[in-house]
């Protein structure tokens, strides 16, 4: 090999190296590597109590949701539904409807889980943050669909009531990567609170159905 051709080969080599370095720098700017993100998180939340830090550690399902920004491919979606459905615990006695009056309170209560909440605060479901329910309540959010007349529209069908229990217990058992919290699976709400909410949606006497 002549010196000239050696030089040419070297230049090609350097060219390739530079090119791939550029390419990876660009992808790095698009999606930073997980270790970098973790370092940032540590600098900001690293002093929080361990149980708080555990809460922001994404589980299997959230890892997939985060990676796809909630637009999961169907194969992944099926896996999420299967995994999340397995987490749903139904009442032992099979009774799904509690007390709609208690359900009203749970739906209106937005407290719990915030670092400003005193220890032992009973968490609410904060349903009104995202849903319209009773027509009389004008302060409702729109991140989720309106749930007015929810039970009535479904002819108070017991199967539909069970679906609603499942939905509230674990929204992602129904819609993968739903923006709605997994209230039962994440232990935000108790079984009784969820039953009271199902009653709010499915009791014919509930103001939601008036």
């Amino acid at each position, binding site marked *: 090999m002549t010196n000239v051709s050696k030089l040419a080969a070297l230049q090609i080599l350097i060219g390739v190296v530079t090119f791939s370095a550029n390419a990876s*720098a660009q992808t*790095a*700017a*698009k*999606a*930073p590597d997980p270790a*970098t*993100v973790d*370092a*940032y*998180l540590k*600098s*900001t*939340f*690293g*002093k*929080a*109590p361990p149980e*708080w*830090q555990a*809460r*922001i*550690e*994404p589980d299997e399902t*959230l890892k997939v*949701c*985060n990676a796809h*920004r*909630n637009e999961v491919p169907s194969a992944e979606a099926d896996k999420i539904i299967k995994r999340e459905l397995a987490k749903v615990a139904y009442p032992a006695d099979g009774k799904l409807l509690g007390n709609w009056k208690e359900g009203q309170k749970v739906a209106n209560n937005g407290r719990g*889980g*915030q*670092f*400003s909440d005193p220890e032992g605060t009973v*968490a609410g479901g904060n349903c*009104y*943050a*995202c849903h319209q329910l009773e027509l009389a309540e*004008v*302060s*409702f*959010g*729109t*991140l989720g669909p309106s749930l007015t007349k929810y039970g009535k529209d479904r002819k108070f069908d017991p199967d539909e009531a069970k679906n609603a229990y499942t939905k509230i217990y674990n929204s992602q058992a129904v819609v993968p990567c739903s*923006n709605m*919290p*997994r209230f039962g699976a*994440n*232990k*935000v709400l108790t079984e009784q609170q969820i039953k009271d909410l199902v009653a709010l949606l499915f009791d014919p006497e509930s103001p939601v159905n008036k």
Partner: protein
Amino acid sequence: MKHAAAGSALAAILLFFSGLAAVAQDASEKEIERYRAMISDPLSNPGYLAVDRGEVLWAEKRGTKNVSLETCDLGLGAGKVEGAFAQMPRFFADGGKVMDLEQRLLWCMQNIQGLDTKDVVTRRFSGPGRASDLEDLVAFIANKSNGMKIAVQLKHPKEQEMAAVGEELFYRRGGVMDFSCATCHADEGKRIRLQGLPNLSKPGKQPQDTMASWPTYRVSQGALRTMQHRLWDCYRQQRWPVPEYASDSVTALTVFLNKQAMGGEINVPSIKR
């Protein structure tokens, strides 16, 4: 007194907003917009009291070195305040990292003034009878970028990393409610209860209007607040742990949001609910 009208204007604002809950949505959003425009002037916006206090603090000699902050380099050269906020956060070679205005002020207090910043950090968010040097300084410095356009720096690799990590954090779900910033800020025309939510996921007018209006005087809190406080409050609503003040994730989110808000014309302190 320069801001004599502030008190009575404040009373009017409080009256206006306390009637709001009953009114609800779209029409009232427009009203707020109109009202905001009306009171965004120095004589009736109490946020300008913070601007005045910040101006005094900037020139006050403090710390073991007994010097003022007037030689602090905010990115455009020692002591140059005009336009500096519009280009922050940015990379500072002397500190070896990207800093937002609050991080930079703490750096200058420590390194130029020789000031122990423990007390200043304790008072990072003002409360009744407790002024915040940082809120006041931010009000003063940010105000000196009024009329200028948001032009966050993205040339340095560390600035690019900040923008990329900020975007990642914006979409990162977690906490007992599985929330991320995107849960509340990635759709058009949504609201939580009655509060309208800006869509910050796409570059353009909504992030521009948002980012160009912070720091702001928050009527409901009776205090001037900075982006550090806004994101602290959003992480609270997100059910995440308390974010460390002036830490990297908060700055990364600010870089990302300012990238979305590029070109927005700054007019601060604004006034908000």
